[in-house]
């Protein structure tokens, strides 16, 4: 049922466009749709091996505390409880998922050792023959805490005297090649502020955002006769999960097999490797298939959300709307552990100063540790909140100058050949044409000079 829905619009960049697409512009049926509408698609939790045991986590009831003691006596006495795993049972208890691409240090325990750093952090894993017994066992684990002061705000966490969240880093921020943050230094922003007709500075911030897939995070691990483990998982990243799990289990990669790729919604929330390693250890220690799946509360409380951010943007602007300097101070709340947020913060820096050619740019992008739920990936993480701030800033500047916000953007939009703040030459830019088209489609009038602008040239500016 492949048919062309709409002709390809070749009005922009005609010379660069071919019209011989076979898929673009046509309707292609999803390959998995038949399985979905008949109920035959197999999600990980549809796998029901005989003898399946259930794993439930006892989690931290504190934001930040030393663990004074863990008493498993009552939990072990619950009928049906097979095993309770603590940090001592995990072969390599300390990890960070991006170590696969050389990011360090290892900063997160699979199961807490002597300290908890966020509410809901896993402490011990109860494995039982029924889900009810596992829940009952997890509820009966007794942990005694010595509370530590907690910090929940990125700027407070960086202030002097703030409680140290993560000892493996040694300070409340990630270090980028010896620097306290990801930085951009291009031109001289202070000079631009001195020369500008206007200086505008505003603050933007966002809360953490939970991906909230309808299927919660989980896996079923089935020990095989040949000693391998078969992992049915809803991870968004099968091989990433396999490799990280092997490192945590200290086992060769070929001892693990992942069956996955069918994900009941992920949006980035199923990229961290949080359920598979502990379920694998449980399966090895009990020699039974083990299921570890979050309930809805866990999905909302402990699965890693999009990071909260706080962003200050200060712009040097001329009367005619040209932005001649932009200074950005950006904080990304990593929560208690790094996960994917050092990378997200780098993406935030890479995205500045937005799709505009600004001759003087200064940015400090901080990846900050606090006692909040570790944040991680979510659709365009590191970029979307920055865009919210940048584009809000553009609208506010337009309003302050009493200028059409589209014209302000067309004036400042990057063109092919411009040197970007990261010292890369811009190519394949199309912002000018996109704005022109959007204006046309929404009946927003642009003067002739703006309609003649092009991404290919700075003429007419």
């Amino acid at each position, binding site marked *: 049922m492949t048919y062309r829905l709409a002709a390809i619009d070749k009005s922009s960049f005609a010379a660069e466009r071919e019209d011989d697409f076979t898929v673009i512009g046509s309707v292609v049926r999803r390959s998995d749709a*038949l399985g979905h*509408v008949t109920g*035959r698609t197999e999600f990980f*939790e549809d796998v029901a091996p005989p003898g399946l045991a259930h794993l439930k986590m006892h989690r931290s009831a504190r934001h930040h505390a030393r663990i004074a003691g863990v008493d498993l006596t009552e939990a072990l006495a619950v009928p049906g409880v097979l095993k309770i795993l603590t940090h001592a049972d995990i072969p390599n208890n300390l990890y960070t998922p991006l170590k696969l691409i050389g990011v360090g240090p290892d900063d997160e325990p699979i199961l807490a050792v002597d300290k908890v750093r966020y509410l809901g952090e896993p402490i011990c894993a109860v494995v039982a023959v029924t889900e009810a017994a596992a829940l009952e066992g997890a509820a009966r684990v007794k942990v005694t805490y010595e509370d530590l002061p907690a910090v929940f705000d990125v700027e407070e966490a960086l202030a002097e005297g703030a409680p140290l969240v993560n000892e493996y880093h040694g300070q409340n921020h990630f270090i980028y090649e010896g620097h306290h943050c990801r930085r951009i230094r291009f031109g001289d922003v202070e000079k631009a502020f001195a020369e500008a007709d206007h200086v505008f500075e505003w603050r933007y911030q966002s809360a953490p955002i939970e991906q909230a*897939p309808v299927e919660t995070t989980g896996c079923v691990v089935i020990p095989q006769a040949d000693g391998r483990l078969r992992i049915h998982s809803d991870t968004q990243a099968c091989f990433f999960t396999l490799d990280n799990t092997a490192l945590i289990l200290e086992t060769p990669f070929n001892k693990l097999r992942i069956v996955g790729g069918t994900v009941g919604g992920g949006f980035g929330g199923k990229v961290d490797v949080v359920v598979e390693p502990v379920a694998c250890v449980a399966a090895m220690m009990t020699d039974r298939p083990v299921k570890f799946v979050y309930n809805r509360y866990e999905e909302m409380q402990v699965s890693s959300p999009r990071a909260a951010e706080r962003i200050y943007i200060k712009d040097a602007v001329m009367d005619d709307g040209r932005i001649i300097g932009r200074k950005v101070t950006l904080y990304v709340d990593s929560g208690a552990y790094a996960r994917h947020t050092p990378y997200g913060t780098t993406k935030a820096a890479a995205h500045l100063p937005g799709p505009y050619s600004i001759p003087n740019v200064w940015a400090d992008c901080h990846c900050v540790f606090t006692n909040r739920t570790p944040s991680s990936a979510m659709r365009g993480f590191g970029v979307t909140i920055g865009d919210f701030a940048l584009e809000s800033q553009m609208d506010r500047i337009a309003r302050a100058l009493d200028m059409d916000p589209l014209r302000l953007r067309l004036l400042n939009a990057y063109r092919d050949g411009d040197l970007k703040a990261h010292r890369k030459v811009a190519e394949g830019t199309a912002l000018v044409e996109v704005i022109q088209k959007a204006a046309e489609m929404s009946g927003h009038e642009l003067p002739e000079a703006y309609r003649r602008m092009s991404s290919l040239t700075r003429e007419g500016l």
Partner: protein
Amino acid sequence: MPSQIVSLVVNGEPREFIAAPGMTLLAGLRESLGLTAAKRGCGQGTCGSCTVLVEGQARAACLVAVETVAGLSVSTLEGVATGGELDAVQSSFVDNFATQCGFCTAGMIMVTEALLDRDPDPSEEDVAEAISGNVCRCTGYQPIVIAILDAARRRREERASR
């Protein structure tokens, strides 16, 4: 309380299984009968992914204690296609891209079956009302609403041509 044998008519066939006290209809279908189309998104009646029909009425199977429906007829997504042929709702969901990850799809289709059984010509508002208990995080709902209205049209046409 001891376990008991529960009999149900599932997708037209009589079925029996042993139910521990408090077992939900969802667990009975998925774990005892191996009918896994209905999903557990929340286990607390808030997402609709577990929706099945009990005597033709859409119910959240995660909230129904299985002994309370003993002897009644239950319909699940597995029983909707007949002889390998998709019904109008299923094919309309495929054609209108109303399924992405597919996790909400069983629930969405079952509420649609119940809706179209009681109202062959629903308005867009009726459709929105019917799926108001079903969460979809992928589609943004619009393709689902379009698919349901299209399914209603297809079904009316099928009826008329018969």
